Structures are given as C-alpha cells and as structure tokens.
C-alpha cells in the first residue's frame, strides 16, 4: 500500500480524537457564543437594589435544575475528606466529601415549603423532600426515612431592611438538613452570605455579562480591600431576567480557577412535576422522627455557644477565629460556620491529626506552632493549644496569636 494512503488512513483516528476533544472542550464555548449574552446595563447599586426588591417579595420562581459544587481548596489529602466519586457525581453523600472535588445536587422547587433536594451517590441517594408542613429526609444507603418536624417559625418577620433576610423554609435551614448542612450552600445562600459580608471593606462592581446554565446573567464582583485577605474576589452571577443567583465563585489570589464554585449546570423555570414532592417511606424502611432546629443565626444560644468556644478577631474578610484545642476541634474552618461536633460523620480526631501532619512548624514573637496553608484558608495550631483560622495571610494569624486573650 502506498505510503500516502497509509498516512491518510491514520489521519482518520486523529480527526476522530480532534472531533471528540472539540466536542468536549468547546461545548461551553459554543453555548457562550451562541447565546452571546447581552443584558441592559445596570450599575452595581441598581442591581443590588433590584435584587433586594426581588428578595423582599420573597418568592423565588418555580424551577428545577442541577447544581454543581466544585471545591479545590487546596486542602491536603485528609482522612475522611476524599470524595471517591463517579463521573460527574459523587459516590459518598457525606457532607465532608463536599470539601474536595466536584459534586452534584438536583433541585425541584415549587415554593417555600414545596421543594426537593437530591444528592445522588453511586447506587445511593439522599433526598430532602418538603411538602407543606411535612419534611422527609431519605437516606437510601441506610434505608432510613426521617420525618422532620419544622417548628412553626414566625415567617414574614424579616422582610424589609437588609436584603439578606432568610425567606421561609428555603434555602433550607442548616439544622433542618443535616446532610446538606454547610459546607454545601445553594447559590441563594452563598449569594446572601457574600452580599451580607459586603461592607466598607469591600469594593462592589459589576463584571461582564456571563452565561450560566444557558442563561444570560449579570456578575457582581466583590473584591476585598484588605491586603491580608487570601481571597481575590467573589463573583455572584445573577439571572438577567429573574435576578436569582445562578452561580457563586470564589477566586483566591494567584489562582486562575475558582477555589470554590457553586452554580446551576442546568436550570428550567417550569413547574416541577408534583410527584417529586410526595414522599412515602417505602415498606421496610426505618422511619424516625427528627426535629429541625431553627437556623443557627436565629438562635441566641448559638451565639452563646460560639462565644464559649472561641472568639473572632478582626472583622469582615480579615476575621480570624481563635479557639482552643482539643475541646472544639470541629470549629477549625470558620468559613463554614458549622455546628461541628462531628455530626456530619467526619472523624474529627483523625482529621486533626492529618492537619497536624501536613502543617509546617512556625515560630515568632507570638510563640510557636504549626501552620497549614491552603489557597484560601490559613490554619495555625499553636503549641499552647490554640487554633487560629481565617481566609487571611499567615501574618494576620500571627498578629492575632500575639494578642493573648
């Protein structure tokens, strides 16, 4: 066979690889070009006001979609954090596994008290189904259905004023949805937290219009003014039409890819099928009763607890959590503001040992200890048994450690 023909023949698989690579790689690009997002110009103030107004009404549109959360916090491989997962999806529905890798959450939303959240695992599934006053938590791996009683919270008491008020049962209360409790946040929750954190220490601007889940979206860019902050900016994408948060990205200084991202991968503003909200415990399943605790920030005792455990030095982006070891080891990541206590199944002791092993010894005027640096969080464990953590450069931790309190 002629050499030339042979070369042509080998061109076919090369072309096949190119076609596949192009299809995989340029899918998002094609989508972005096709829709070429264009939205009327709005300033940051106008946008925030419109958002606040939309939220004040408190009604999110009916929708169903898929949310993807991706975290590359640069944490060392810690026991209990490895999310062994399938293709795009997770295998373990453990919340701790959400701290690394990419995870999928499906959502069906028909109203504040009618929604379903689904965390798919490999041959398993965790569901939170709310229909009126009935809230079920279903864990297929444990074959266990938990009926959560939601205490009759005074709704509507927090409509005005600040745009970050909690509007009803959704986004779900951290306590009500223990498996979904932070660190996972819906775009709504994350956006509210980001906007709440904004203040005099933050520069707020409007970024380029982007396409998220096929929809044109405004981008609000929050840039910390502090030099100590490890966070470059937080970008919140707001749907151009519904002004609903579609995506939140956290960029660390010196990293091209977001260290944390939660956003819709697909989204449709149609009423979800009603069968999504009807849950009956299957025959043979364990049925338990559970009580949903009100959200942490609405609970005075939560503040008191937090005060007992540790204190926060600094404010805004520079907040540093100072706490003591080993009574409260789960408080090591303040950004998560989680209730801790190993409720989410993390082996706290093993995790802490892992932290210590991965940390480098440091010392200074403030004393000595071990420092763990990730892209967005610095954690300092001092030899006198304190733990300091924050999304700041280590120097800020040393300063905080120097202040004995």
């Amino acid at each position, binding site marked *: 066979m002629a050499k030339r023909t042979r070369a042509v023949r080998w061109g076919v*698989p090369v072309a096949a690889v190119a076609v596949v690579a192009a299809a995989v790689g340029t899918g998002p690009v094609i989508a972005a070009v096709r829709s070429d997002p264009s939205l009327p110009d709005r300033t940051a103030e106008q946008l925030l006001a419109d958002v606040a107004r939309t939220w004040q009404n408190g009604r999110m549109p009916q929708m169903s979609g898929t949310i993807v959360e991706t975290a590359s916090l640069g944490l060392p491989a810690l026991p209990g954090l490895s999310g062994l997962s399938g293709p795009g999806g997770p295998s373990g529905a453990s919340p701790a596994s959400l701290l690394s890798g990419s995870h999928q959450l499906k959502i069906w939303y028909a109203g504040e008290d009618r929604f379903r959240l689904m965390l798919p695992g490999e041959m398993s599934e965790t569901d939170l189904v709310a229909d009126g006053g009935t809230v079920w938590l279903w864990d297929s791996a444990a074959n266990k259905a938990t009926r959560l009683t939601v205490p009759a919270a005074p709704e509507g008491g927090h409509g005005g004023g600040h745009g970050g008020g909690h509007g009803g049962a959704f986004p779900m209360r951290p306590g009500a949805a223990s498996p979904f409790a932070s660190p996972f946040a819906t775009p709504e929750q994350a956006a509210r937290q980001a906007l709440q954190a904004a203040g005099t220490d933050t520069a707020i601007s409007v970024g380029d219009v982007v396409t998220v889940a096929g929809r044109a979206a405004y981008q609000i860019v929050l840039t910390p003014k502090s030099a100590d902050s490890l966070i470059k900016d937080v970008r919140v994408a707001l749907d151009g039409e519904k002004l609903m948060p579609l995506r939140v990205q956290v960029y660390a200084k010196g990293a091209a890819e977001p260290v944390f991202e939660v956003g819709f991968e697909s989204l449709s503003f149609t009423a979800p099928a009603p069968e999504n909200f009807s849950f009956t415990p299957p025959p043979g399943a364990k049925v338990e009763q559970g009580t949903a605790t009100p959200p942490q920030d609405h609970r005075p005792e939560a503040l008191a607890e937090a005060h007992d455990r540790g204190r926060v030095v600094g404010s805004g982006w520079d907040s540093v959590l100072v706490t003591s070891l080993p009574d409260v080891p789960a408080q090591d990541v303040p950004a998560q503001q989680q209730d801790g206590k190993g409720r989410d199944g993390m082996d706290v002791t093993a995790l802490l040992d892992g932290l210590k092993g991965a940390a480098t010894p440091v010392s200074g005027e403030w004393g000595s200890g071990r420092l763990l640096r990730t892209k967005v969080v610095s954690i300092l464990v001092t030899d006198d048994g304190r733990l300091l953590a924050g999304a700041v450069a280590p120097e800020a931790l040393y300063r905080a450690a120097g202040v004995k309190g």
Partner: protein
Amino acid sequence: MSVRENGRRHLTRLLASEIGLTFRRPRNLAMLGVLAVVPVLVGVAVRVASGGDVGGSIIGQIAGNGLMLTFAAFAVMTPIVLPLTVAVVAGDAIAGEASQGTLRYLLVAPAGRTRLLLVKYANVVVFCLAACALVALSALVAGLVLFPAGPVTLLSGTTIPAADALLRAGVVVLYAAAGMAALGAVALAVSTLTEAPIGAVATSVVLVVVSQVLSAIPQVAAVRPVLLTSWWGAFDGALRAPVAFDQMGQGLLAFAAYVLVFGSLAWSRFTSKDITA
C-alpha cells in the same frame, strides 16, 4: 445492484458464522457460565446471611425483594467481571485469527478489510448484549426463586410496580451493554496491534484496572469524566425517580466517543497493516 445484494448477503453470512463461532467456543461458553453463576452466588450469599442484619444497601434490599438482585448483580459485575469477558472476546477478535493464521483466509473472501472489521465489531456488540442479558436473566430467576418479589423501592425511596421494575432492568441491560461495547471497541483496536491474543486481552484488562484505580484517587479527580469506567456505574440513573436521563445520556455520549476514536484507530491499523499470517 446484484453485486451489492451479494455483498450484503455475504456480510450477513459472515456475521452469522462469527456469532456461531463465538457462542460455540468452549472458552466463551465457560465465561458466560461464570456470568450466569455470579448473580446466583450473590443471591445465595444474601439468603444465607439474611438471618442477621442485612443493612439497607442495595445488596441488603435483595432479601426483601428478589427483583433487586437484578440491579445488585450489575452493581457487582460491571466494574470487573463483565469487562473481563468482553476484553477476552474483543481482544481475541483480530489477534486470535492472526495468531492461528486464519486471518489470511478471511481476507481472501471478497468482503474487504473494512467490512471484516465491522463484522468483528458487530459480533463483539452482540456478545456484550448477550452477556448483559444473561446476567439480568440469571439474577431475575435466582431472585424470584430465593426471595419474595413485589413492588420495588427505587433509590429515591419511591415504590414502583414490579412490571415497571422489569422495564427499568431492561434499560439497565441496554446501558450496561453499551458501556461494554465501548470497551469492546478499545479491545478491538488493541487486537489489531498485535498477533498475540493474550497480549490484547491483558492490555485491555490492564486499561480497565488502571482506569478504576485512577478514579479512586481523589487527587486526580479531574480525569474521572474522561475515563470509560467512570460511566459504567451511571446505570443507577434508571433506579431514580425521575430517571436520571441526563447522566445516562452523558454516559452514552462518552461511550460513543470511545467507539468513534478506538473504532477509527482499529480501522486505520487493520486496513493498512501487512497481514502475513
């Protein structure tokens, strides 16, 4: 016209003879036997152990409902047992003929190399389908004999009638067969590269194992969507309510990409190589 018809008839005859050979080979029959026995073993093990706490996992649910054995069998067998058998059949397809010296005679027939390769691959696809259907059938029979049957509880906690569950089992069979057919394309491509069938089989199996290991390492999580093995498990989308067609659709696209790339690789190699044996 008549030449084309002749060609088509020849192709059909060639495929029929290939399929006949595949399903008459003692080695392949033994592998199919193993495929049929594994679900029975799983069922018996659960039956024996069901005195104690069987837990709530998919395996544990078999005790309450025999139909679940069908799905459990695929969960147990798609990672390695099924791929192994497919790798043997597909890896042997070209290299086996070459090593026995029969490839030359096949090429004497007027089918042409492209058509011969197509027939070989079609034969692999038929084997994949048969293997998956056999697993499902064996699991179904074993489940019905060993355990009570009834409405099936899906992963989402929804309960569906047994007839619906059978339909979903059919979807699982087709999806699993598609995944195995993608592996078949890889093994066929490897098979065109060598004249030692055992080398082609071993290479394919090693590729599967390496993929499985890679997808178990969190630090390289980014490569997971590219690996063939990551998509095999997505058949569990058929066990959700609503059915996770998006996930399974992505899986099918991944399979198609593998068939395209490795199929064209096999074609270039097979149509341009010198066949001496």
